């Protein structure tokens, strides 16, 4: 277990170092930040001042060292476009993205597991068929079209829900939350559904196929023979054994929820880090791009590591296989 964990941590650090190198290369070789900050009307003195301010007059190794040092402390320099520290910009927008991701993941898991069990139990019923067909369409629709469709239905036609923004937020000092106001709660519904729909269909299909697999096994037949109630068989005997793959896939999907939040945030003008990232690409704002890249790789690497460890802890078969590998 420990050897496996150490090896995985080592691999994660290598991934992060590679990403860090890419981020640093972006700083050094992409465009001229002085151009993008000052525009066309400028004096030579302005150029000199900005170059010193950004540390661009130092030699390459010094810049690299400074970058690494800064990155470890969460300091990614100053945004070319807004002239503010990038860490500050990300910190004030991170709560919005995390709240959105959390609500979507929650919806995806609750509805995904429930519908998965339902379609597995009533696999020949008309309701299950409709759900499965809808899920196929849901998977093939691009995320942004789902968002636009929801906006059209619930914001334009029915005008039940807001179509953009976060509503009113409450400032808790270091975290601005939308969970405490009515408009904040209403505003999160549509973006969260848009973002969670794909993951929901994925979890649903997984739970369904795992359930069908388990329900065929002998111990389920024995449980029936013993005269246990259906509910007890489905939930206590069958569902429990489907959970291992569901946990791993859900864990892996957490990372993609945060990445796909970029699209949802743009559709709904949700003021999170994804929207910040898209705007930084549009205006080639390198420090913001680099910081986002580092942040999201850290998240991905951490999530993957935790999922691997969970997998290792939950499923004894993985442990045996790994030992087999090592020999």
């Amino acid at each position: 277990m420990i050897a496996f964990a150490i090896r995985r941590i080592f691999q994660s650090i290598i991934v992060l170092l590679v990403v860090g190198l890419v981020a640093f290369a972006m700083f050094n070789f992409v465009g001229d930040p002085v151009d993008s900050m000052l525009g066309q009307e400028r004096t030579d003195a302005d150029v000199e001042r900005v170059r010193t301010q950004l540390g661009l007059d130092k030699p390459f190794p010094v810049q690299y060292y400074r970058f690494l040092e800064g990155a470890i402390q969460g300091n990614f320099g100053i945004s070319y476009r807004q002239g503010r520290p990038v860490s500050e910009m990300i910190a004030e927008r991170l709560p919005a993205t995390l709240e959105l991701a959390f609500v979507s993941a929650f919806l995806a898991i609750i509805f995904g597991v429930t519908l998965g069990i339902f379609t597995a139990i009533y696999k020949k019923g008309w309701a299950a068929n409709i759900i499965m067909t809808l899920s196929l369409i849901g998977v093939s629709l691009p995320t942004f079209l789902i968002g636009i469709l929801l906006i059209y239905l619930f914001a334009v036609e029915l005008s039940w829900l807001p179509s953009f923004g976060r509503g009113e937020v409450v400032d808790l000092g270091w975290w601005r939350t939308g969970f405490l106001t009515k408009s904040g709660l209403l505003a999160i519904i549509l973006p969260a559904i848009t973002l969670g729909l794909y993951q929901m269909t994925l979890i649903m299909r997984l739970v369904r196929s795992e359930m069908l697999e388990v329900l065929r096994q002998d111990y389920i037949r024995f449980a029936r023979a013993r005269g246990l109630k259906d509910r007890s068989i489905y939930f206590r005997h069958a569902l429990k054994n489907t959970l291992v793959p569901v946990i791993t896939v859900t864990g892996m999907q957490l990372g993609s929820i945060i990445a796909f939040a970029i699209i949802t945030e743009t559709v709904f003008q949700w003021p999170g880090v994804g929207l910040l990232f898209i705007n930084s690409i549009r205006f080639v704002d390198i420090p913001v791009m680099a910081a986002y890249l580092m942040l999201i790789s850290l998240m991905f690497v951490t999530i993957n590591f935790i999922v691997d460890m969970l997998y290792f802890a939950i499923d004894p078969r993985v442990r045996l296989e790994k030992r087999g590998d090592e020999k």
Partner: protein
Amino acid sequence: MFTKIIENFQRARNSDFLYSFTKSPVAIISFFISLALILGAIFAPFIAPHDPFNPATLNLMNGFSAPMQPNEFTGEIFWLGTDDQGRDVFSTILFGMRISLFVGFAAVAFAMVLGVTLGLIAGYVGGWIDAAIMRIADVQLTFPGILVAMLIFGIVKGFTPIEQRDEMAIWVLIIAIGLSEWVQFARVVRGATLVEKNKEYVQAARLNGRSSTGIMLSHILPNVLGPVLVIATISLALAIIAEATLSFLGVGAPPTQPSLGTLIRIGQGFLFSGEWWIILFPALTLLMLALSVNLLGDWLRDVLNPKLR
């Protein structure tokens, strides 16, 4: 010569491939829908009733005409309506599809050439080259493709001079989407190469003194093409959606060369004022295109390689 053509024709007519095609309604429908859309895109300049990019032919009075209804000022009828500047939506869709499909095909071709080359080298040469290539592939696979494409788009855009950014955007898109999709090709080709390289015919070729490059290209490559074709079709659907998503987010095709994604982005602005046709028809076209190519890819996978199912 003629007999050879006839012979090939006979072989094609009796093949399993054609047989399973005629037995699958889904495949037939998606094939003809994709074909119609692709032909529409290729011949857009001849089919389109209006030229949406020539300001001289535009009449602002035609703006916001509803589909199939005569315009209230000019009395002209547009099948799918017009946008705010009087551009015919049907024509902009045809031209938009041209860009979407061009980016899709070019990106997949780029990803295919890169992935197949790297996969062949990794599988045939082995050693640290194999380890390095596959390590990069693994790292890239940890991240969703669309995120990789966005990042590469941003980086490459940074390298292009500011004046040329709009003109170059299409090519930047192709590079970004291509680089985000090479991994699948490389992995499959590497796996197949590992199997093929130990077979007798490869050993015979080696004994004959053929060079490694020759063996890779003329002996191994033809034998791994089946799965490559399947991945290429599925990648095409992914690339079309990726292109539309990036353009929709404003980091893809510029408004001067609108793709389907750009058209949807423009149309979103009119959603609240009731001009639904400006967004609905490009969105439907994108859906039909992506769905039909995707279904075709699924069918191809089942036919060419039942093991992959």
